[in-house]
């Protein structure tokens, strides 16, 4: 099967990402933003034409079809590396290694990634070790909860950085001289503050999901809008949503602002 369908690195990446998560993924928020896979309408059409993915609209969300699962399973067993595809060698090495482990355990890759594979018997752990582990988990929950309010404030601040840049750019545009020293200092001072803000956010797994000014499909979970776009309609991001990855899921901490594109 691998020789029958030769895919681009992006298309291969999409299929492996769908395999690895074992769940449907949104084209914009997950595949493009989170996994940095530059999936376009051309890739979407090709993967659908080959019958490798199933796609739902509003927003575009993809999952592996039966054929798609058979393709990734075949690729896991592929002995060679696809020709002319930089960086695919490492990926091929990882999935090949994974395939050998799952094969030794008699575990189906589909069940493994969907999280429905029977648990592999683990060596018994002592009661003390179990207690320490429970205590560590308890502490972890406590720390996460204690950070909750601070993270919201961090997210709002991170979201407002582009607004500050925009207002400052406006001031620079109307400045007396293009190299107004005072304004230059304002920009540098703000950069010093914002850089640390961005680092603090990254350490708490907070990140913006879309860049301001870019196009994105409208989803009311991610965006507020002042002009009521339809679900899935392509809008312009005015303020980026800030999301947090936590417990394997993505939570919107600060909704972005979307604006309809002029027709």
């Amino acid at each position, binding site marked *: 099967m691998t020789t029958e369908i030769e895919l681009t690195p992006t298309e291969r990446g999409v299929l492996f990402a769908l395999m690895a998560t074992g*769940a449907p993924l949104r084209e914009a928020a997950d595949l493009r933003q989170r996994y940095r896979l530059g999936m376009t309408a051309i890739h979407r059409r090709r993967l659908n034409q080959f019958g490798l993915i199933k796609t739902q609209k509003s927003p575009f969300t993809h999952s592996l079809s039966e054929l798609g699962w058979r393709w990734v399973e075949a690729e896991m067993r592929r002995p060679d590396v696809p020709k002319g595809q930089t960086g695919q060698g490492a990926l091929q090495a990882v999935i090949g290694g994974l395939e050998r482990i799952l094969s030794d355990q008699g575990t189906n890759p589909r069940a493994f990634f969907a999280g429905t594979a029977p648990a592999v018997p683990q060596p018994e752990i002592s009661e003390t070790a179990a207690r320490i582990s*429970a205590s560590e988990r308890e502490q972890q929950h*406590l*720390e996460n909860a*204690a950070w909750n309010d601070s993270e919201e404030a961090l997210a709002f601040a991170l979201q*407002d950085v582009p607004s500050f840049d925009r207002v400052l750019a406006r001031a620079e545009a109307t400045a007396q001289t293009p190299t107004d020293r005072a304004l230059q200092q304002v920009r540098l001072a703000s950069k010093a503050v914002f850089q640390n803000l961005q680092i603090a956010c990254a350490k708490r797994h907070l990140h913006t999901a879309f860049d301001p000014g870019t196009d994105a499909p409208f989803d009311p979970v991610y965006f*507020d809008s002042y002009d009521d776009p339809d*679900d899935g309609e392509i809008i312009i991001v005015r303020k980026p949503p800030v999301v947090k990855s936590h417990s*394997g899921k993505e939570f919107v901490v600060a*909704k972005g602002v979307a604006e309809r594109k002029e027709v």
Partner: protein
Amino acid sequence: MVLDWFRRLSQKRTTDWIACIDFGTAYSKAAMVLAENTTDLMADDIKPLPIGDGESRSDYLLPSLLFLTDEAVLFGKRADETAQRNERHGRSVFASPKQYLSTHAPEHLDEKLDSEIDPTGTYTARQLIALYLAYLLKRAEHAAEEIGLDWPPKLRIARPAWSKERAEWGEEILRHLVRQAFLLIEGLGDDLLAEQGVSHERVRAVFYEMPEPNLADDDDLFHLAADGTATVMEATAVATGSIRPTRRRIVVVADIGGGTSDFGAFMTGLPGHKVVSEIRGSSHVLRQAGDVLDMHVRRMMLSNAGLLQDDPAARGPAARLRGRQRNLKERLFQTGEVVEEIGDHFFSLKLDDFLSDPRVQDFAKRLNETFQQALDSAVLAAREFPSQGKVTIEFMATGGGASLPMVQDMMRQAKTDWPTKMVEPELFQDANEDVRTVYPQLVVAIGGAMKDLPKQTAPLTAVPLAS
């Protein structure tokens, strides 16, 4: 294999721990506390349950809602997001079981719900609350196991201050709902936690097949208080979790939440008698709290931006401000001014302007009046239960609104000639910073799970102040 519907209901329960469920308006919480005397408890004997792990940003907060699609009942994060995607299409989430029990007539509980909430037209509010409770208890079971605790312990359920009639009805209903919830867990099992929710077909089949929940004794299922109740009033739970009975003390507790402000006065025993009693007749509730201030912050910010709240142009900005209102209020009160971007410009609101607004002042006035009623009962008790010397009445503010300026003013400017002072909730001194940060939002669940709940004092009579 024949399903043992009563397995969880009749299961032997650990008596070492007590659990309390706090149905919050927006989020529900649960905690387990070692069944020891309050004064002997250490920080490590108190275990908030991470029932919200993976369902909300805080591991201890579980969204108090469920959403019905055409195919399934959804819970948690999935329900919240699906609701957001569907509310513009005329669909509503079934939110806040507590509010439902507080505001609807008893007979409404068994009526079919509006099609906005239930497009299938088959569910009653009672069934949805039982389903939510089953989901919550199932998550609590997982959370307890994850942190190494035996489940189930005996339960208590926190409730708002209700009228006597509603409290009696609510007690009976909540006990029945808990029993139903345990049966639903047997019937639905891990499907309750499935990402895609539970299909209506399956839920209906379980409701159809489910026997009447009448096996376990209430005494086995619940940790009953001295008056035989399984429910504990929220203000009482707060007092239990916040007052150390070290000597004779009289404490007026103001629990300022989002939707309600609960007041109550409590008295501790003489030295050597480590008990907390609720002063009879001191419990009062104002059905306004922090949410009212959120609304006024929003109104004044929109006004500063030149927008009228009922104007279509204000709909978007108003929704956006609503999403940030807790943060806006916090910034306003902590820094004296809040600045926010509305449309393409930044606008500010100053604290002085906010506090001098007539509608904000009206809320402060109602707060003062309700607090004064609880204080009057405390003064009566201080006169009737003498101690060595004149006991000082203590004021303690808890809940999300404890630090609001009008709450602090309310306590500072209380009208009484009795000696008073303001105190902080007494947290566990050996607790780390994280515990102290998280504790205030969980204090109802924690206090409600403590063994020594306050009993009511004898009726008070007005006696003249001894000169």
